[in-house]
């Protein structure tokens, strides 16, 4: 009794009740399709978040000062004034794994153009700032090294600022006032869109940090130092080197803790990924419930089938079929049902996740793992729910089975 023979017998008996076999499979089909589609949506969301994190900058490293406490009251991260532009210069000079460094000052300011005004965020950095944050130009130019050295009153605008101050007017070479200081617009940035948290990344004005530091705020320190590693593999090395350089510059003894924090993009990505993983698991577990329901459908039909074919079982036993033979016969039928359903479900799942991405404009991503997982799960469901009816058939008394009408 070869496997092929058993399969043939199973296919023949399933073929006799095509409609019923199909309806039974439908439970598994829907279950598998749902699991694949939901995993695709979850994976797609994860992918989308990763792209968004990439849009923050390439291999970005953020260095900000640690919290200070005055009189026992902690003032939160970034409140100390330990980081200076010279720290940034030192990192650039002494850390081989670091590609770009920019000191960053951020503040918010009222901006005015003619009769329009808009409150926005001013990000002040050096020429590397654009490379680190992946900003690209739509029009005009970035500010130059000379602009930094001469504290030039120039700025580059984000799309949201352009829309609110200029409307349809081309802003390049126009003068705007930021906190009553005149700035010449020399460039407009390409839009980046919202962050995962809903912040508008385009609501921004970028200006040379020297100008903002001396003319607007009168600070000697910077809020943050942004750096980028040579490659994603070099991020950890870069983090290490930056920490060493800054500890030396800040004259920290070995027992003293860092007075700054280095955070890499990987940290941010990990946090975001865990969120999307929870989402994926949630979706997949809801979908797998329908797979289990499909399995119960198989069990139900197999029980009906065993009752219907009691006489056939009796005949088979009387001419020498062992319990095991009958068990295999019905078990293989259940497995064929579930695997065939699984196969159709995979196709349907792939098709429906395509449909989701084209209708809802969501990114969906079908991983081979999700196909293997759901197909395997369908097979397991077939074995699990097919076993009881098959065992029931195998344990029938041949005399009673033969007499069954």
């Amino acid at each position, binding site marked *: *009794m*070869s496997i092929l023979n058993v399969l043939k017998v199973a296919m023949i008996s399933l073929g006799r009740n095509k409609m019923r076999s199909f309806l039974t499979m439908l439970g598994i089909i829907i279950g598998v399709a749902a699991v694949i589609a939901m995993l695709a949506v979850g994976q797609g969301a994860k992918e989308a978040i990763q792209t968004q994190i990439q849009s923050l900058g390439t291999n970005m490293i953020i260095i900000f000062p640690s919290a200070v406490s005055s009189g026992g009251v902690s003032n939160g991260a970034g409140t100390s004034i330990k980081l200076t532009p010279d720290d940034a210069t030192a990192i650039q000079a002494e850390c081989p794994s670091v590609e770009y460094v920019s000191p960053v000052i951020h503040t918010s300011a009222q901006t005015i153009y003619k009769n329009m005004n808009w409150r926005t965020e001013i990000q002040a950095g050096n020429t590397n700032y654009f490379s680190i944050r992946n900003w690209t130009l739509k029009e005009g130019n970035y500010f130059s090294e000379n602009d930094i050295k001469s504290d030039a009153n120039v700025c580059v605008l984000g799309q949201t600022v352009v829309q609110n101050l200029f409307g349809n007017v081309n802003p390049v070479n126009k003068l705007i006032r930021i906190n009553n200081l005149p700035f010449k617009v020399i460039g407009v940035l390409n839009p980046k869109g919202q962050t995962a948290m809903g912040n508008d990344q385009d609501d921004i004005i970028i200006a040379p940090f020297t100008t903002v530091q001396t003319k607007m705020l009168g600070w000697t320190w910077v809020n943050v130092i942004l750096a980028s590693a040579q490659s994603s593999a070099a991020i950890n090395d870069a983090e290490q080197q930056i920490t060493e350089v800054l500890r030396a510059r800040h004259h920290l003894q070995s027992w003293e803790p860092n007075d700054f924090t280095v955070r890499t993009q990987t940290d941010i990505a990990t946090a975001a990924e865990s969120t999307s993983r929870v989402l994926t698991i949630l979706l997949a577990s809801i979908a797998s419930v329908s797979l289990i329901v499909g399995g119960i459908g198989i069990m139900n039909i197999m029980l009906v089938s065993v009752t219907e074919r009691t006489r056939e079982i*009796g*005949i088979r036993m*009387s*001419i*020498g079929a*062992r*319990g095991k033979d009958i068990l295999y016969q019905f078990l293989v039928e259940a497995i064929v049902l579930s695997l065939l359903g699984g196969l159709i479900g995979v196709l349907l799942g792939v098709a429906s996740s395509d449909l989701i991405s084209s209708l809802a404009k969501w990114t969906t991503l079908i991983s081979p793992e999700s196909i293997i997982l759901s197909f395997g799960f369908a097979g397991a469901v077939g074995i699990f729910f097919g076993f009881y009816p098959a065992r029931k058939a195998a344990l029938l008394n041949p005399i009673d089975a*033969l007499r069954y009408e």
Partner: protein
Amino acid sequence: MLIRSSLKIDLEEETVEDKIMESNNMNNNIIKVENLTKVYKVGEIEVHAIRGVSLEVKKGEFVAIMGASGSGKSTFMNILGCLDVPTSGSYTLEGTQISQLTRDQLARIRNNKIGFVFQGFNLLSRTTAVENVELPLYYKRTGTKERRELAMEALESVGLADRAHHTPNQLSGGQQQRVAIARALATNPSLILADEPTGNLDSRTSIEIMEIFQKLNENDITIVLVTHEKDIAEFAKRNVHFRDGKIGSDIIVNPRKIASKVLELLPVNVEEEIV
């Protein structure tokens, strides 16, 4: 793995069976039943279906078991056919003690040593004649090619080779019963058990079936037949009457009817051979 290991067991058991066959040549008994009883429990009541039966059937015999309904002949038949086990007493089939076998061992005995022919034919519907005949060989794990050859051989022996690819509902009652006989013959069993094989057939077809049985018996195949029709029992060599779970009489049939001669006297039933 499972299939391979069970094949191995098959091979081992066959060598054991061969030894039993050798030892059996001395006393020639196919069936040896001693003091057999069978008690059913229906709720609180005990039903004594068989109350101590002893019987010997030698190789090449043709025995008809007769009796009214409730006489225990069907129960006895089920035990002879290894579908059921006795409550007490012993049953030896070709030297193998049946009484204490497991379900799987009984299935193997049914497969290798016994061919069943039932009143209601009991063919698998929507399965062709030749596939029906192949079924016991399939459970004997015979190879596909050999299986088809043996099945066709068996169908030829009952004169139905030309109907091999018809399904039961395309065959007449007599033809279906001949397919069932072919199925019983397929594994070359030592014993053919027929339970009211003519019960669903008209008288001429019944005699045709008996003709086949007589022909098989001439080729040294042992046949045990259960029937309540006296004129059918007269085609056998020996008649055993059951009464109230015991053997009432055990006689040699004389004069014995020969089916082929009876058929010559009967008018030909034209409709019977319609496909």
